[in-house]
Every structure is written in C-alpha cells, then in structure tokens.
C-alpha cells in the first residue's frame, strides 16, 4: 500500500492533500453546518411566504391555469366583503375569549401547583399530567371529543347533566352563538396547559427572598401576589399572551372537526375562511390576500414578542 501511494503522481497526491485541506476548511466555515437547514427554510418557509404576497396581487384560481396581475383588487374585494368582516369578528371573539380564559385558568393552576409542590401536597404531579394530556391530544381528536360530549340530545353527556340539574337541552353546536362558545371552550381545554406550564416556570424564577422580605413587612398573601409575584412574572405573562394569541389566531384542525366552521359561518375563523376560499371556492388570489393580512397580524405580534424577548435575554 505505502509503496503504491508513494508512487502516486505528484498531482494526485496534491489533490488528495488539498481535498483533505478543503474538507478541513469547510468544517471551519459556519455556512457548511447551516446550509442544509437553511435550504429547508428557504424552500419551505421563505419562498411560500413571498409566493403568498405575489399571489395576493393576482386573480389566480384553482381551476384555471391562466391568471393576471390585478394589483390590489383582491384586497379591495376582500376588505369590502361583509363575509370577511363577519369572520374577523368571529375570530376576534374566539381569540380574545380563548386567550383570557387560558391565561386565567393557567395562572390559577400554576399558583395552585406552585403552592402544592412547596407544601408537598399530594396530587400536584397528577394534576399537571391531567391538564397536559389535553394539550398532547391531536387537534382533530379534540374536536371530535367535544363533539361527542356536546351531542345535542339528552343523550349527549353535557346535556344529560344539564337536564339533571333542571335545565333545558342546549343546542351546543347548531345554535350559532352556542357553537362559538363551544369552540372557545374546546380551545381553552386544549390550550390551558401551555399557559400553566409557562407561568409555573415563571413563578419558579421569582427569588424566594422577595417573598420573605414581603412577609417580614407584613404583606398578606394577596398583597404578596399583587406586589411581588405580578411585577416579577410580567415578562413571562406577556410572552405567554403573545404566543397563545398567535396559536389561537391560526387554529384550524380543532374547529375543522368540531364544527367545520358552521353552523353557517358562525365559527369560521379567518384561518378556515382562507382555506375554504382557496380550496372550496377556488379563489387562490383572494385566499392569499387573507393569508397576507393574517401574516401581518402574526408579524406584528412577533415584533412585540421579540421586544420582550430581547429585553429579557439581554441579547
């Protein structure tokens, strides 16, 4: 072997050496390491984003291959359609109610578990597991779970319990307002775990000596919460708020299987409206315009998030 390799022509020898060298050099360039991930990001994240903006300026349709650039026409027709504003109102109610409920329940649970763990109460871990299991279940299944819970005869279990308590049967999914309420309930069920975990993690970062100092000063539990806990975990609460707003705004799967957007358009949030506009009504251009409007809200929320993030991490 060694004889042979020593007999290699100079050129080949150099080539091998320089290949090894350039492999070494490649390894010392960050671009080499990042390239595969960057390629995926460019193809599946950046390009479609740019495409969405471009498509929103066309009259592209799912059924006809030909299309023209029509400027802001898609936006004008979307923004002047009453359906869009109805959907925006539905979305706003859905997002606002879900976010408030998730933060409230998440906070109550985080405080209870924090207290329970410190006092070594039994059931702290089980409670956490119970809440989190709702979050692990696929969105499609969550919609079906609640659909089964809310069956609209006295055979549906929730209606059965209401009946037992002396109330009438409620049309949870076929009455427009009740359907929205049911959707909010199911989404709160799904999302509370996330807020609970984040807020609990936030509570762990509050230095104990602050509580001790407040106790020495004679602060009662409620005062300690108001003047020590709240200011200390404010950044976490804000980050949580932004994240769950974005998640809720883009909810699709759970609503698809729970109500499909119905009855009528009663639970058709913007994500659903966009999808149905594109794939059921074939207006890709207008669907893209809705997508771009949603994108703007996403980016706006992200900007808020990053501000807090940068302040917190001191980056």
């Amino acid at each position: 072997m060694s004889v042979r390799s020593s007999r290699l022509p100079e050129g080949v020898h150099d080539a091998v050496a320089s290949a090894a060298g350039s492999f070494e050099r490649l390894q010392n360039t960050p671009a080499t390491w990042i390239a595969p991930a960057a390629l995926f990001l460019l193809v599946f994240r950046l390009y479609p984003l740019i495409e969405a903006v471009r498509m929103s300026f066309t009259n592209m349709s799912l059924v006809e291959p030909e299309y023209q650039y029509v400027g802001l026409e898609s936006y004008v027709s979307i923004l002047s359609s009453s359906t869009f504003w109805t959907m925006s109102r539905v979305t706003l109610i859905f997002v606002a109610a879900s976010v408030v409920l998730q933060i409230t329940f998440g906070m109550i649970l985080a405080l209870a578990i924090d207290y329970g763990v410190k006092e070594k109460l039994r059931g702290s871990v089980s409670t956490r597991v119970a809440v989190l299991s709702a979050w692990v279940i696929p969105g499609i299944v969550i919609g079906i779970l609640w659909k089964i819970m809310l069956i609209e005869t006295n055979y549906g279990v929730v209606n059965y319990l209401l009946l037992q308590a002396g109330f009438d049967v409620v049309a949870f999914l076929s009455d427009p307002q009740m359907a929205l309420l049911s959707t909010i309930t199911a989404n709160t069920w799904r999302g509370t775990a996330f807020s609970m975990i984040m807020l609990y993690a936030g509570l762990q970062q509050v230095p104990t000596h602050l509580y001790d100092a407040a106790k020495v000063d004679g602060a009662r539990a409620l005062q300690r919460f108001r003047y020590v806990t709240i200011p200390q975990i404010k950044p976490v609460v804000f980050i949580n708020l932004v994240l769950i707003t974005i998640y809720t705004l883009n909810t699709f799967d759970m609503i698809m299987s729970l109500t499909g957007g119905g009855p009528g358009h009663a639970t058709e949030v913007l994500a659903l409206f966009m999808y149905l506009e594109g794939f059921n009504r074939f207006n890709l251009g207008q669907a893209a315009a809705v997508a771009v409007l949603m994108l703007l809200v996403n980016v706006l929320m992200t900007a808020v998030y990053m501000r807090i993030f940068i302040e917190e991490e001191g980056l």
Partner: protein
Amino acid sequence: MSGRYSAESAVDRLSAPVALTYLVYATAAVFFLFPVLWVVSMSLRQPGEVLSYPVQFVPRRVTLDPYVRVLQDSGMLTWIFNSLKIAILEVVGIVLVTTPAAYAFSRFDFRGKRHVLFGVLLFQMISPVVIVIPLYNMMAQLNLLDTHLGLILLYIGLQVPFSIWLLKSYFDTIPEGLDEAARVDGCSRLQTLIYVLLPSVAPGIAVVAIFNFVFSWAEFVMAFTVLSESDLYTVSIGLFSFQGQYSMDWRVVAAASVIAMAPLLVMFVALQRYFVKGLVEGAVKG
C-alpha cells in the same frame, strides 16, 4: 399515639389555602380528564347503551366491537403505519438537519449571527397555516402532491426553526473548554461534534425528537392539503374523513379517536419530564 399525631397534623394542614388548592386540583382533574374518559367509555359500549337513558357513565357490559369495526371498515391500520413512517423519518431528518446548524449557531461567531437567529425565530412565529396555499402550488410543481416524501420534507422545513433554537440552547450549556480539549487532541470539528458534544446534548435531541414525533403525528392542515388518496392518509386526516362518513355510530367514531390519541398519551405519560422541558425551553427561551 402516632395515629393521634397524624390526625392532628392532617387537621392542621387543612388550612384554607390547602383546601383551596385541592379544590383547584379536583376541578382541573374533572374538567381535563372527563372528555377523554367519556370517549373511552363510549368506545367500549354495546350498541344500545350509547343512546340509553339515563346515561351510563361506566358501560355495563364492555365490548371491543367498535374497535373491530374501525379496523374492518376503515384504513386505520394503514393510516397508523403511514403516520409512524412519516413521523419517524421526519424525526431522523430533522435531527440530521438541525443538529449541525445548532452546533454552528452555538460555536461559531460570525457577522450577522444575531440577525440570522432572529430571522429563524421569526419563521417559527409565523404559522404554517398562513402559507398553506402557496405551499400547495409549490408541491404541485415539484410533483410532490400525494407523496409521503413531500410531506416529510415539508414537515422538516416547518420544524427547522423550533428545533434549531431548542438544540442551540442545549449546546450553549456545554462549556467550550470541552471542544477545545478535543481539538487540541487532534479532533476535527466533525469528530468533536460526534464524539464529544453529542453525548452531552443527547437529552436536547431527545426533546426535539419527541416534539417532532408529536407534531408529525398530530399535524392536520398540511397532510390534508398534500394527501388526497385514502391509502396515503395519516391518522389525523384518516380520522377526519372517517368521522364525516360514520357519524351514525358514535361508538365507532369514539373508538377511532381513542386509537388516534392513545400513542401520544402513552408516550406523554412515560416521557412527561421531556415534554415539560421542551415546552418551557421552546417557549420561554425562544
């Protein structure tokens, strides 16, 4: 003696905050577990027992008949196989693609690194739902519609930002001295990564793998858009189409739902620690 003491301390401990905490625990347990348990109980009933009045909370006679019906009347076994295949390949792909990137973001200093990292974060924050329509066109042009390969590549693309940030936070916790020692001993960067750093970031890789598995298993919008042949369906879209056709017998829909959520619930209970870690580190730290 000891009995009296413990009884006393139990009374002692049942102060107002403790009672309140237990009240919260109990309410949460009922609210969050009841829908799951109800659907499980529904899936084990005899035909007449679903629509019985008064409603039975625990089925009187248990039957596995709904499960048999799901397996016979739907492509559930195929869908489970498809979901497993897609989730496993996605996990392998994402780990291979994002571990080197996370390593680079943690260990190299280069101009614009902060901006690139924030760019990645920005992508993470923008929901994939927003880009589903152009993605459909793109997949059509690439001939990747109705292929598992297309869906797997797409999932990897969507999950790159989250996975990079999470893995980077793990790399950041390992002192650079470890790398330097290995480099002095003549290891290349690749060798350093594989032999020295990987064992230490293994828990991070586990978290990334688990979260990606759950994501791939549960994902709906993209699978629904990319796959249209029922033989290629994943569990999520299979279940969705099945419940649409089968809403006459809720026991069977319930059984299908139990099958769809059971693997994730089992995984979650077994690996609870990793889930909490991923949630906190993925969200609080980026």
